[in-house]
């Protein structure tokens, strides 16, 4: 499979702050890869280096096997959505997209098409400056799709969108991925969204890639031995389960707890969990083996890295 992005040992500092430190990542054609990490992890800096907007202090980045710095050729193959999108604000949305069509040498009718794709057809004669934050984000996505790029790089693409618009956008990503074999690199810290569309992830923290690869492989590697217990009192049950000698880690959320156990301790937890639930008067709604969300996977990777 062809690698569309290959970054090796990237490093970038802003003054004394090291934003990216020895980061390596590879993006294969035909994948939807999530670049996940907390705010300040180095996602935007990494994306800017990939797009040729920032020069790495160290390391190399190749996009379509070329250096992206000031490379006009690869821009015809890459669509970009920045975290904060800005356009010449006095243009009307359709007029500006028609201009972009002319820049990329595609028929101007594509402008109306992409506006429809992001559900902005009713705002076609509205000036860009009159768009709301959410509409501007949709417009940025339409703008990135004008030339039907082979690779879409998006930094916090769903920021400013309401839940319905987010859901529609994720559907659009899946459609473009399946129907047009478009490759995506999506950076976000909203993990449930990424888990819906990504088949690969690169988990970064403090400027380093902690883990990367296909999601099933990462689950096998990091989330084996995970048991999910759904309960109405996750905090109380979590405290009790955490005291069990064979339990390595417990994370709770509003709907239950995720438990990582030592090998061959599964039966013991199945016995102990109902007893402990009774003790704290919690109701167990279900126990599931080998199940972890992307969020849990992320916590396991980041937590494991910190312990290591």
């Amino acid at each position: 499979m062809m690698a569309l992005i290959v970054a090796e040992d990237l490093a970038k500092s802003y003054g004394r702050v090291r934003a990216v430190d020895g980061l390596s990542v590879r993006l294969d054609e035909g994948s939807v890869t999530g670049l996940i990490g907390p705010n300040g992890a180095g996602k935007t800096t990494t994306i800017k280096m990939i797009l040729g907007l920032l020069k790495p202090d160290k390391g190399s980045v190749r996009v379509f096997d070329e250096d992206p710095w000031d490379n006009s050729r690869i821009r015809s193959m890459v669509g970009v959505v920045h975290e904060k999108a800005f356009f010449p604000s006095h243009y009307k949305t359709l007029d500006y997209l028609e201009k972009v069509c002319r820049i990329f040498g595609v028929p101007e009718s594509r402008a109306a098409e992409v506006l429809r794709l992001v559900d902005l057809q009713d705002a076609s004669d509205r000036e860009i400056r009159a768009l709301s934050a959410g509409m501007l984000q949709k417009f940025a996505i339409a703008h990135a799709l004008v030339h039907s790029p082979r690779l879409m790089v998006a930094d916090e693409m769903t920021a400013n969108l309401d839940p319905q618009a987010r859901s529609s956008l994720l559907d659009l990503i899946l459609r473009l991925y399946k129907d047009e074999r478009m490759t995506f690199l999506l950076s976000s810290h909203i993990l449930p969204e990424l888990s819906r569309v990504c088949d690969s992830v690169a988990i970064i923290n403090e400027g380093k890639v902690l883990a990367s690869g296909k999601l099933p492989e990462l689950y096998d590697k990091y989330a084996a031995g995970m048991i999910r217990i759904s309960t109405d009192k996750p905090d109380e049950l979590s405290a009790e389960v955490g005291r069990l000698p064979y339990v390595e880690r417990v994370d709770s959320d509003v709907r239950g707890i995720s438990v990582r156990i030592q090998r061959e301790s599964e039966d013991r937890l199945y016995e102990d969990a109902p007893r402990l639930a009774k003790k704290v008067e919690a109701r167990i709604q279900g126990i599931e083996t080998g199940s972890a969300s992307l969020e849990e996977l992320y916590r396991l990777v980041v937590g494991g890295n910190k312990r290591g």
Partner: protein
Amino acid sequence: MAKAKGRPFLEILASALNEDYRFPILEAFAFLYALGTFALANLSTMMSQTSATGEVAAYNLTTSLLGIPLFIFLILIFKNIAYGLGSDIEKGVIQTLFSYPLKRRSILSAKLLSALGFSLVLFFSIQVSALYIIAPGIVMPYLGTVLLTYAASLSFPLFVAGLILLVTLVLRRGGIALVAGIMLYFAMSIVQGLLSFVAYATKSILGLQIISVLSPNVALGTYYGILESSPLGQPWTPGFTEVLGYVGASYAIVVLVFLLGYAYFTRRMNL
């Protein structure tokens, strides 16, 4: 669909023109140029007719028409480069432009062609029209003198424009670049004025020669003897070839400053 060669550049240029000269900016500056040019026309014609003839008259006439329009030209450049380009960098519009299939140098060229080139076209069309209307008898036979006067007078504003470009690229803030540009211009003008005065007062030929490298109009004016009757006198009269050398040197500096801007924008500017 085949992509027309040069089309992306023209689209970015059209967009830059649209931003730089949106209504009523073009109309306002055209009016100011015309006002500045024609408001001085009668006075200059009178001066050139009464006190000089030939090349000197052509030089006097051209110089007297230049004063206010040159200042307006600088204001327009401050607005377009410092505020326009600076705001594009500050707000992130330039990142959007960098997603198009264009080299960075083409994007900067489009921006500068709009900011500087179009302003120069506007400036010259009004100036040349004024000269031709006011005194065709003086201008036409001495077209070379007129053009040389323009070349000598414009190099300093273009040098300032180049510095403003550098300041804008480094500061990346429209408002701050605008203020810094204005301060820089006035500081340079004051320093140049003081140095000229000191050079004339002390009859320092070297001082005048150094000033002429940045502002060859000093050498050209001296060549035409504009200070012969002044109280300070005229310690230095350069030859015509020497004047051409100063004009050439000043434009070499202008080109160098702009090349520095291009080099920074294309090779080093991180966004």
